């Protein structure tokens, strides 16, 4: 160490940059400052200035566009006029926090339990359960909300007859259908596969010797779970909570869709994200919207800090040592069949029924009216009402839709390759330099895009694309790739970090000793060992990118650019059957891709967990 300090600067730098982890950290630090810190500062600046004439009118007192002001902060956090601050901010924040925590509990509980049964028990039907359990995550989150409403709504609340009522005659209370509880359930079920993927990936790779040693010492099953299994899956658990909480609290579509009760019913629930969207969308209150976005990010950063405390301290989460790949399954005994049946029913219900619901919605002219059954939204060669240039024909025959699907696929593949590789590299650097501040900073910065609302993130890059010198970006496919890669990198960096932290340093050290170069170590040693987890790091951005709407809606050259912008346009113009059909197609495409990846690489999201 002393000798190193005496070396000239050039040599010290050469020595520093001879370590791949250092190069990765520095490169990504620069990249992430440019790509992530700038949007964040733009939000901050927006929250402290008058953003246009409408805001100036709202603020009054001679305020003018561009003026520095604290008004957005004081207005949103303290205004007592009509209880504005408490109604617009504090109450929604409290209720949304409850909703997000409940969603976390559902996701981690449901996903974690299923992951444990799949990876650590002798449950029958694993392959089927594992395959379909990820379906709800492939769907857009509002799909589960739509299914929830379609299933539970009833005539007692004048909402039309839902599936449950039509089959059983049961009318559930309104609070089951609309409000905070169904929002939390829909989000929890949507993100449960996420918990399943992250927790399951670690459980699968866990060295069974630890549990077996405890069993030999006659430790109780509960104690093994509490003292061995839970601590080992803790990084994945905290990552899951972080991701689910952040996603849930900023979810707009689900609370928007499931808030239809009358004010007096007591079920009316206006989430913080709905408030944020309405504030940002109004020219009068854009600055307040930025304040809310910043506060939501601070909330999530709090959990991120907790996450760092778990992974950054001296604890060790190494589970893959290269010394043992042994996995022994817990025998469920008589409960085996019962548990399997319950899981099969529950998982099938939440995975298959929404798809069925989509299919039905695309086949009926009038929702719920079977006499209006039609295939025209799939197969018609005649244009629908309100159509133009003949592009709104049956989606299977629509060149516009197929071209958009092709572009979406291409975009998602590129984004997943870029984001997945970035995430893997960041994971490697973070794992190798665990106590370094630089690595922690890079890791945190890589996660921040997840916390920035999609609309705001898109808006910053839109402004950039209109700036002189950058106008070549406007409407370009490259801009979509750039924004998508950054926005979806957190998925990959989280999975990459979790997987790398599990790998013992000894494995790479052995390769270094025999002179294996870094690239070869990565591709021939590290990647193959944790292939399942890394492939998840590629597949998650792919899935998210395929169904992303709000991030790209500002940046796409036109509504025909991507399949989700086509879907949104069909939905907006009332062609809900066609938009449901497209939704179904997206899910099918993702499943096909997953199948192809599985055949080519032998890995897939569910297989990574243990569906085989």
């Amino acid at each position, binding site marked *: 160490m002393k000798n190193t300090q005496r070396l000239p600067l050039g040599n010290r730098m050469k020595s520093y940059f001879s370590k791949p982890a250092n190069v990765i950290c520095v490169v990504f630090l620069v990249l992430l400052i440019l790509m992530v*810190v700038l949007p964040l500062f733009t939000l901050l600046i927006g929250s402290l200035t008058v953003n246009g004439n409408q805001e100036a009118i709202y603020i009054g007192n001679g305020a003018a566009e561009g003026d520095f002001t604290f008004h957005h902060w004081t207005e949103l956090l303290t205004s007592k006029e009509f209880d*504005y601050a408490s109604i617009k901010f504090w109450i929604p924040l409290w209720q949304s926090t409850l909703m997000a925590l409940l969603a976390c509990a559902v996701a981690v509980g449901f996903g974690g339990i299923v992951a444990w049964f799949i990876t650590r028990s002798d449950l029958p039907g694993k392959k089927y359960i594992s395959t379909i359990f990820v379906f709800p995550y492939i769907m857009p989150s509002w799909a589960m909300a739509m299914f929830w409403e379609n299933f539970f709504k009833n005539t007692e609340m004048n909402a039309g007859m839902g599936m449950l009522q039509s089959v059983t005659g049961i009318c559930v209370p309104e609070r089951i259908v609309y409000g905070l509880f169904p929002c939390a359930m829909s989000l929890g079920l949507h993100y449960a596969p996420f918990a399943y993927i992250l927790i399951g990936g670690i459980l699968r790779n866990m060295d069974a010797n630890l549990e077996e040693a405890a069993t030999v010492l006659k430790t109780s099953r509960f104690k093994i779970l509490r003292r061995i299994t839970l601590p080992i899956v803790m990084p994945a658990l905290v990552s899951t909570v972080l991701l689910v909480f952040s996603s849930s609290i900023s979810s707009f579509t689900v609370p928007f869709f499931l808030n239809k009760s*009358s*004010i007096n019913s007591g079920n009316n629930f206006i989430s913080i994200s709905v408030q944020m969207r309405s504030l940002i*969308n109004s020219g009068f209150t854009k600055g307040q919207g930025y304040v809310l976005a910043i506060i939501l990010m601070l909330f999530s950063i709090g959990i991120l800090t907790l996450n760092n405390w778990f992974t950054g301290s001296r604890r060790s989460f190494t589970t893959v040592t290269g010394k043992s790949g042994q996995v022994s399954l817990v025998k469920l005994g008589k409960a085996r069949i019962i548990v399997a049946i319950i899981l099969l029913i529950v998982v099938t219900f939440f995975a298959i029924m929404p798809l069925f619901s989509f299919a039905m919605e695309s086949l009926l002219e*009038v929702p719920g009216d079977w006499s209006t059954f039609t295939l025209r939204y799939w197969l018609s060669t005649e244009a629908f009402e309100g159509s133009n240039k003949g592009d709104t024909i049956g989606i299977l025959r629509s060149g516009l839709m197929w071209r958009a699907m092709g572009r979406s696929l291409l975009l998602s593949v590129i984004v997943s390759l870029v984001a997945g590789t970035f995430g893997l590299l960041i994971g490697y650097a973070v794992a190798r330099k665990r106590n370094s501040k630089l690595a922690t900073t890079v890791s945190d910065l890589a996660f921040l895009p997840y916390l920035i609302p999609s609309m705001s993130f898109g808006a910053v890059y839109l402004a950039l694309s209109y700036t002189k010198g950058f106008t070549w970006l406007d409407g370009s496919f490259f801009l979509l790739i750039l924004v998508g890669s950054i926005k979806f990198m957190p998925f990959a960096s989280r999975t990459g970090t979790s997987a790398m932290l599990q790998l013992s340093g000894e494995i790479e050290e052995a390769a270094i000793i025999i002179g294996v170069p870094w690239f070869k170590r990565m591709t021939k040693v590290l990647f193959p060992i944790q292939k399942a987890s890394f492939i998840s790091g590629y597949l998650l951005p792919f899935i998210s990118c395929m169904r992303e709407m709000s991030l790209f809606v500002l940046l796409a050259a036109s509504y025909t650019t991507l399949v989700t912008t086509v879907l949104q346009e069909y939905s907006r*113009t009332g062609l809900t059957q066609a938009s449901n059909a497209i939704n179904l197609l997206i899910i099918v495409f993702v499943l096909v891709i997953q199948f192809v990846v599985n055949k080519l690489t032998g890995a897939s999201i569910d297989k990574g967990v243990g569906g085989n």
Partner: protein
Amino acid sequence: MKKVLAIILALVLVLSMAACGGKKEDEGKSSVQQAIEAAQKMSAEELEAAAKKELEENPDLTFNADSLTSGVNKALQGFEKKYEWMQGRWAYNVKKGAEYQTKLTAAQKAGSYIADFVMIQDGSFLKNAMIDTGFLLSYVPSGEGIEIAEEDQNPLVGVTFNKVFMYDNTKVGTEQLKNVWQMTGVDGVSLKGLSNVSYQSPLAEDVNQNFLIMLTGPDACEKLTGAYKSYFGKDYDPSGDDYENIGYKFVAEFIANVGHWHSSDTSEVKAINNYADEGRIIFAGLCKLKDYPYYKSEHKDSDLYYKKAITAAGWNTEVEGFDGFVYNMWTLIPDTAKLPYTSCLFIRYIHTEEGFNAGWGGILGYYSSNRLIPSVEGDPALAEWNSKCIVEDTTYLDSAYNTAAKFIMRQMSGVN
């Protein structure tokens, strides 16, 4: 650490300044302004020649039209048929309200090209962010067959829309809603209160927010006062409650009484006959009836389609108080347009009967600002709607937004 922070801040400052772009200096009129002024003095034939020449001189350019309404797309198809030299030289871009406002604002701040023609709603945004900054400009067509009221000229109104209270005639009959105070849920002297109103949340739909704010304005208060007396058989006594005026009282009681907050006008109107016995009273655009596929398939070979739709989904044009809300969509040219003469020609086209009908003809709930173009058969004239509805007023919206929006939010929260 401090150095790193300083570098980051400096970097961000430089990039932020770059992102702000340079504001256009006031050095006289832009080329687009000059083109519009010239077009204003041209005959239809001269304008056509100028537009044709403009396109021929710029073979790489496409005429880009941005709009929320697909009527523009249909009108462009008619435009292409009428002017064959436009063949394949245009593109229609669907642009949704708030998202498009973000794009327009970014383009205005950067002084960048966004489109050659823009059709948008939200009067307050238009005035404050686009007209006052000089980014969107008006070309006012004139000549034979075109008569546009002065108040609709700057900014130029393209199409006017309305939202009314609709319901399923087959279940509730046309006589269900006769006085707006019924929608507060309180029984009147001879009419019953109604609790089955379905309204899209003002948090998600700007037009609905603007309607509620406009209800607190002087015109609405006058209408509400008259209807109150008729409904309750007595004059409204402002000393009896704490509301700023009768409009605020109505808004508070209306919001509290809404039975269902729907997420999409289009889907709600489609399902109008799907609800229980008393049905729903749906506040939605009259033009949404065009998407009633069930009736269209039933009567697709008949010219009576829209009349059939009217029979199914009814509304009362004689509601005491008001029938609904009237608001505009404006047709404008960005100051950075590349094909301004083509823009003027297209604006002129959609203000002719031929052009309007190509885009919006034969559909309920669309009204041209050209007074010589009648509304579709079975739909009252715009002047009649204006007299019976609450009409969007940008000046009032701006002045009342702060207080009224907070008041609405408080009612929406259910906190008393």
